[in-house]
Structures are given as structure tokens and as C-alpha cells.
């Protein structure tokens, strides 16, 4: 096998979505046996680039070569045949089928009268053993944990003899322990001569697991470094384009208890884990961070505060009053503000106007309605004040909110939530998917609310964000809330252990 032909070569790839250039003349090589980290912020064009490489998108310009062979554009089948395997961020598994069937899908001629499961099983067992990827081939994918599903995805690629493996944000859904296991697997793969590209925006992972780092910023390749010869600070600057400073957290006197859960459980939900005997106290002037792997009861906790979930046992106390008849409207009425997890599906009605969305939580107030009729003039004035106060870039209050960028939509939702000066604020993944500038803005607004004496519950999957902002951290695991720990009391590793379900030592 010749070593001077790169495993993968991208030559001036350009991709435009309307006026947006997602990838701008990007070129690089990946050598055999190398782990490349593709680093960049959300929206920098990482996923687009990988989708072009795999044939999901067709590039407007440029070419992709695998071991010297040019891939035809827009043909995943050709990419697979050339030995490119991809583990997507959102897994591409069919839940109704077994692990074995998912892996075998598309690997045998479609018109064979019989699927050869025996041969497939043997090959999977061998791969699983070689690379430490334990899976149960006959288990239904629906019954697997996220970590197991990822192993199935990697096996899918290996089963097809992938020579180049692309992993799109592979650690986003994993606990720190699972992440370590993944990185061990990657080392084994590289030792066997595979080349790996993994996409990430987490600097510490990039430093830990890669040989070389490529940094993307706003669709352009903004830098390339040998991992051994760089540091997190330099990479961060390449990624963001300027120096980033952590938010300054002022000292604020601790306020009264504004929200309290005592031994609260929620009913079993169709999606996500219910809360189990959860105790939680939120003080004014304090940010309480909830750390945990997604799907461990965060949705139930958030729903309980926002009023979409009711307790099946235990009591919820807001401003000293035990609540009954809990509903989203009741939550708003007692001064709870919410920044929902998914701004598109829970925070806004995409096809309604900015103005309609801004008053969506308060249209019944006497400010905006009189004897059952909406006062559009007042609504417009209010919307304009939010647009100005929160620096929202939007064409007009009448524009449909779907036209706004994620950051601007989030600013509007923040404005809507913070305007009535709420006493309790639920911020669920408030900075997910935002660029660094917008993240800083969201953080600043939350800290301002904290200074005013609001009690803030910050749910986030980004440990760095939690550690930077939270006065106290509570770990959520399988619906249980841990004892709160004060700022700096626990190390990242200890928190990670607790997220994986182990008690803190």
C-alpha cells in the first residue's frame, strides 16, 4: 500500500445555500492512520462539509478524492464503496429493526431471495471483538442506549470496510466515561490503518484525541495545527476569530427561597425519564446549574417548572405558596419565565410574526387586549421596544419569525421572558446552537437577571457553560437530582462520574 497517496483529499470545496456560503474553497488532505479534528463553531460549515464528502449534498465547486480516486458528487453509494464511512450526529438507525439488520441493510444485493444473516453475524462478532465494540446483534435498536447506538453506527461503517471514518459531533450525546471508551476505540482503528475525521467544538476533546486540527470559521478554513504544537487558547482564537474572555460573575447577596421542589416525582412519560423524589431549592440571586446527559429527566424537570408537567407526588412551592392546579398559564402568572430547550418547536410559532410571538405568553394581559380584542398598536410598540432593547436584527415586527437567525430568535425569546422581571427563570439549553457572540449575550442577560435577584435554573449539556455561570451545580441522572455542590467544589471528572450514575466519592 502506497503511503504517499492521501487517504482523502478535498480540493477547493465550495457550497452555497442561497446567499449563504457554507463552505468557501476548502482544501485539505487526510493521511492514512491519522486522526483529524475538524473544529468550528455551530454554523461554521463542518457538517455541510462532511455531508458533501459523503455525498448527501452536492458541492457547487471542488472535488473529493479517496485514495487518489475522484468521487462522483452526490452519491452516498459511491462514497461507501470507496471506503468512506460516516457516523452522523443524528443516528441513521431504524428503531424497528435489530442491530444485525441495521448493519446488514444495503450490504447485500437487494434482489437476493434471502438475507444471509449468519455470515453477517460472524463478521459483526469479529469486528466487535477486534475493536472493543460490544453489541448484542439481535437486540432491537429501540432498546439500546445512546452509547450502544453509536457503537452500532461505527460497526456499520467498519462492516463495509471503511478506510476513512467520519464522526459528526460523536461526543455530544456521550457521558465523559463513554467518551473515553470512544477515544480508545478510535486509537484501535487508527492502529489498523484507518483515517479518522471527527467533528467537534469541544477544545479539550480535540486536544485529547487528535493528531492534527483543522479549524473552520464562517465557512473558511481558518487554521491548521499539529495538535502537539498548539494549545486550547490558540485554537479557541482560530475558531472564534478573536480572544474570548469568560463572563465576569459579580458577587450577589443570596436572596430568599423562590422555588422549591420537595420529594417531587412525575408520571412516566412517553419520552424521557421522569423525576424521582427530586429535591431542589432555588434562591434569588443565584444560578443553579443542572448537569446531566440528555434524556435523564431534564425534560421532566423543565416541564415541571414551566407548568407543562404536573407532579405525581411531592410538593412544588413558588414564592412560599404551595402550588395546585399547575399549568403553563399558572406558571406565568406566578412570575416564572421560561427559555425553552428547542426554540423552534417550543419557543416560537415559526410561521407567525415576530409580534405575535412576542405577545404569545401575555396576549390576555390588559396591556394587549381589551374586552376580548387584541390591541395591535400596543403589541407593536412592545415588540419594537424588545427589538431595540435586545438588539434583535429583524426586518420588522411583522416578519415571520422563521426568517430570523437562531441567535436573534433566542434574543426575542429572552426579551419576552425577561420583560416582566420574573422571579424564577428556567433557562433550558439557552445557548445551544448559537455563535459565540450570541452566547455571550445570553450569558450576560442571565447574569443581569441574577443581579436583580431572580432565581435561575440553567439546564445545559455544556459543562463549561455550567461551570462558568453556576453558583451551584446539581447533577441529574436517571431522574434523580444530586445534592447541590458549590462553585469549584467538584472537578469536571467528578461531575462526569455523577452524570454516568456513580455517586460522588
Amino acid at each position, binding site marked *: 500500500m502506497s503511503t504517499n497517496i492521501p487517504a482523502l483529499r478535498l480540493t477547493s470545496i465550495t457550497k452555497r445555500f442561497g446567499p449563504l456560503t457554507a463552505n468557501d474553497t476548502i482544501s485539505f488532505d487526510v493521511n492514512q492512520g491519522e486522526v483529524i479534528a475538524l473544529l468550528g463553531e455551530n454554523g461554521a460549515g463542518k457538517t455541510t462539509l462532511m455531508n458533501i464528502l459523503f455525498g448527501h449534498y452536492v458541492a457547487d465547486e471542488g472535488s473529493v478524492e479517496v485514495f487518489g480516486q475522484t468521487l462522483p458528487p452526490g452519491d452516498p453509494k459511491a462514497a*461507501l464503496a470507496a471506503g468512506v464511512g460516516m457516523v452522523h450526529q443524528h443516528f*441513521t438507525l431504524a428503531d424497528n429493526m435489530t442491530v444485525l439488520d441495521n448493519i446488514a441493510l444495503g450490504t447485500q444485493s437487494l*434482489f437476493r431471495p*434471502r438475507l444471509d444473516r449468519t455470515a453477517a453475524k460472524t463478521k459483526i462478532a469479529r469486528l466487535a471483538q477486534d475493536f472493543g465494540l460490544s453489541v448484542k446483534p439481535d437486540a432491537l435498536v429501540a432498546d439500546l442506549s445512546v452509547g450502544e447506538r453509536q457503537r452500532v453506527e461505527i460497526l*456499520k461503517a467498519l462492516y463495509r470496510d471503511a478506510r476513512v471514518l467520519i464522526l459528526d459531533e460523536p461526543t455530544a450525546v456521550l457521558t465523559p466515561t463513554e467518551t473515553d471508551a470512544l477515544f480508545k476505540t478510535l486509537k484501535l482503528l487508527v492502529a489498523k490503518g484507518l483515517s479518522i475525521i471527527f467533528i467537534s467544538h469541544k477544545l479539550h476533546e480535540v486536544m485529547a484525541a487528535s493528531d492534527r486540527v483543522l479549524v473552520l470559521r464562517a465557512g473558511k478554513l481558518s487554521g491548521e495545527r499539529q495538535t502537539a504544537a498548539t494549545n486550547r487558547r490558540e485554537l479557541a482564537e482560530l475558531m472564534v476569530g478573536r480572544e474570548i474572555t469568560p463572563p465576569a460573575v459579580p458577587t450577589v447577596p443570596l436572596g430568599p427561597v423562590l422555588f422549591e421542589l420537595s420529594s417531587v416525582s412525575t408520571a412516566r412519560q412517553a419520552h424521557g425519564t421522569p423525576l424521582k423524589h427530586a429535591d431542589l431549592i432555588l434562591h434569588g440571586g443565584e444560578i443553579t446549574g443542572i448537569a446531566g446527559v440528555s434524556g435523564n429527566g431534564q425534560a421532566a424537570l423543565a416541564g415541571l417548572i414551566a407548568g407543562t408537567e404536573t407532579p405525581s407526588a411531592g410538593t412544588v412551592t413558588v414564592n412560599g405558596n404551595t402550588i395546585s392546579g399547575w399549568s403553563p398559564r399558572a406558571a406565568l402568572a406566578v412570575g416564572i419565565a421560561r427559555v425553552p430547550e428547542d426554540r423552534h418547536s417550543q419557543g416560537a410559532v415559526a410561521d407567525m410574526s415576530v409580534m405575535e410571538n412576542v405577545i404569545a405568553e401575555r396576549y390576555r394581559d390588559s396591556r394587549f387586549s381589551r374586552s376580548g380584542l387584541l390591541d395591535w398598536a400596543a403589541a407593536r410598540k412592545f415588540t419594537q421596544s424588545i427589538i431595540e432593547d435586545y438588539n434583535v436584527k429583524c426586518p420588522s415586527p411583522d416578519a415571520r419569525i422563521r426568517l430570523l437567525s437562531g441567535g436573534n430568535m433566542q434574543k426575542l425569546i429572552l426579551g419576552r421572558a425577561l420583560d416582566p422581571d420574573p422571579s424564577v427563570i428556567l433557562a433550558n439549553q439557552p445557548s445551544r446552537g448559537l455563535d459565540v457572540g450570541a452566547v455571550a449575550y445570553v450569558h450576560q442577560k442571565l447574569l443581569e437577571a441574577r443581579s436583580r435577584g431572580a432565581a435561575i435554573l440553567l439546564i445545559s449539556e455544556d459543562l463549561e457553560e455550567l461551570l462558568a455561570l453556576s453558583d451551584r451545580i446539581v447533577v441529574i441522572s436517571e431522574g434523580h437530582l444530586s445534592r447541590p455542590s458549590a462553585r469549584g467544589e467538584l472537578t469536571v471528572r467528578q461531575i462526569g462520574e455523577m452524570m454516568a450514575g456513580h455517586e460522588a466519592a
Partner: protein
Amino acid sequence: MEALEILFTASFWVAAIRIASPLIFATMGELICERAGVLNLGIEGIMTAGAFAGWFTVYLGGDLWTGVLVAALVGMTLGLLHSVLTVPLGLSQHVVGIGITMLATSLTYYFYRLALPEVTSPPKIVPFEPWAVPGLSKLPIVGEALFNQTPLTYMAFATVIVVAWALYRTPLGLAVRAVGENPSAVEAQGISVTIIRTGAVMAGSALMAIGGAFLTMSAFNSFFFNMINGRGWVCIALVVFGSWRPGKALIGAILFAAFDAYQIRLQQLSGGIVPYQIFLMLPYALSILALIVVARRATYPKALMVPYQKGER
């Protein structure tokens, strides 16, 4: 007790299996479409078109099996139209399906009138004759019911076996089930979602049309208006009843047909004291009950009715 004795007569079960046959074809057809993620509400119209196409081919002098083939081809063509609109174009499957039903029904009546402008009573054809399976047909009740039917009924049962085998034992079936659950899983393995879905809808529609043809070629021997009479809609319920599994759907079809055969006999028993419409309603009322009991926990194919657009974010 007379009402119970009916259940032990051979003629009752013969009728039940005969009534079940077109339902089995069309239910398997709908099941294939839905497993691939496409709800095919064109079923009622496609059955109408199939009923006419098969019958008319024979009326013009064609062979009975040629009639079945023509019906299948007509079904495939309508299936192709359905899938072009719902798969690559991603239009609403409800609207397209109902549109196909109205289009196919009206076109069928139009061609019928065009071909036979003067006729008041529809002409009959020589239908499929029952064919007794040697040996097995001598068994009491079961022999009569299962092994003394027309070839199309045998074909209906064979279809269930073929569909079940294809879905669970072949690479193609794997792709069909995956495309109805998570199309991106199929795309990521280098298979075209459009081709799999289009193929499934065409194959399913062919079976629906054969189900329609059964009525004109193996039951009523002629074509008349409104002859499908909601059978297509029943098949959609049967697919849910069967939790998208061929074997369970077969049981559902036989159960429904048995209710239907039973109510006809009850009508005769009641001697006109009770309005017969009550009995007509019975199978449907029982189906709703059965759905409530069985289908509440049914797990739908996750991508059912969700159009897939390649490269969409």
C-alpha cells in the same frame, strides 16, 4: 341456538374465506405501502379500477389470468402516479390518496360508460371456477372452506406468505421496513429512498387492484357501480389492526370477513323483524371495537406520512 350453529357449517366458512380474499390482497398491498412510509388512500379507487380492468379484459375475450395481469398493471400505474406526487414531490399523502381514489373511480365509470353505453344490466363473464385441492379438500369444514376455493383465493394466501418472507427475510424487505422507520438510515447505506418507496407503492397498488379484480372475476362475475363499497377503507383499518404485520393482518381480514358472512346469515334468521341495516353495520361496529382493543398499543412505522427530502436539514 340456531345463530351459533351457523358457525359450524361449512358454507359459512366457505363464504367467510371468499369474502376475505379481496381484503387479503388489498390489505397486503396497503401494508407494503405503509411499511415503506406511504399511506395509500388511493386504495378504494385503485380497487375499483382493478375490478373493472380485470373484468373488461375478460369481457373483451381475454384469458382470466390476463385479466389479473391487466388489473395489476393498472394498479401499478396508479401507484406510480401516487408515488410521483408523494415521494419525490413530497405532497400530502392524505390529499394525494383521496385524489387518486376520486380520479380512479371516476375514470373507471367513464370508461365503463364509454365501452358499454347502452347496457342497463351489466354483462357477466365466466369467472374463476373453484379448484379442489386433491386430498385436503376432503377434510371436514376446513377442507371445504380452505381447499375448495378459486385459484385467486389460493393466490391471496400465497401473497401473505410471500409478503411476510419478503419483508423479514430478504435484503429488499429490510430496506422497505427501514425506509418507513427512518429514511435517512436507508440513504446512509447507499440505497435510494425514492426508488424503494416508489417500488413499494407500485407493488402495493398492484395487489390492491388484484383485490378489486377478485370481486369481478371470482365473486360477482360482472362490474357495477359502487361495488368496492368501502372495502378499501376496511383494509386500511385492517393494517392497523394487524400492527403492520402480514400474519396478524391476515387474521384480521378473516375475522372481518367472518363477521360479514355471519351478519348475512343472521339477516336471514331474523326473518325481517329487525331492519337489515343493523346487521350490515355489525362487522364495522365490531371492527371498531377490535381496533380499540388491539390497536391502541400499535407502534406505527415512524416515518409513515413523513415525506423525505434528500439533503434537507
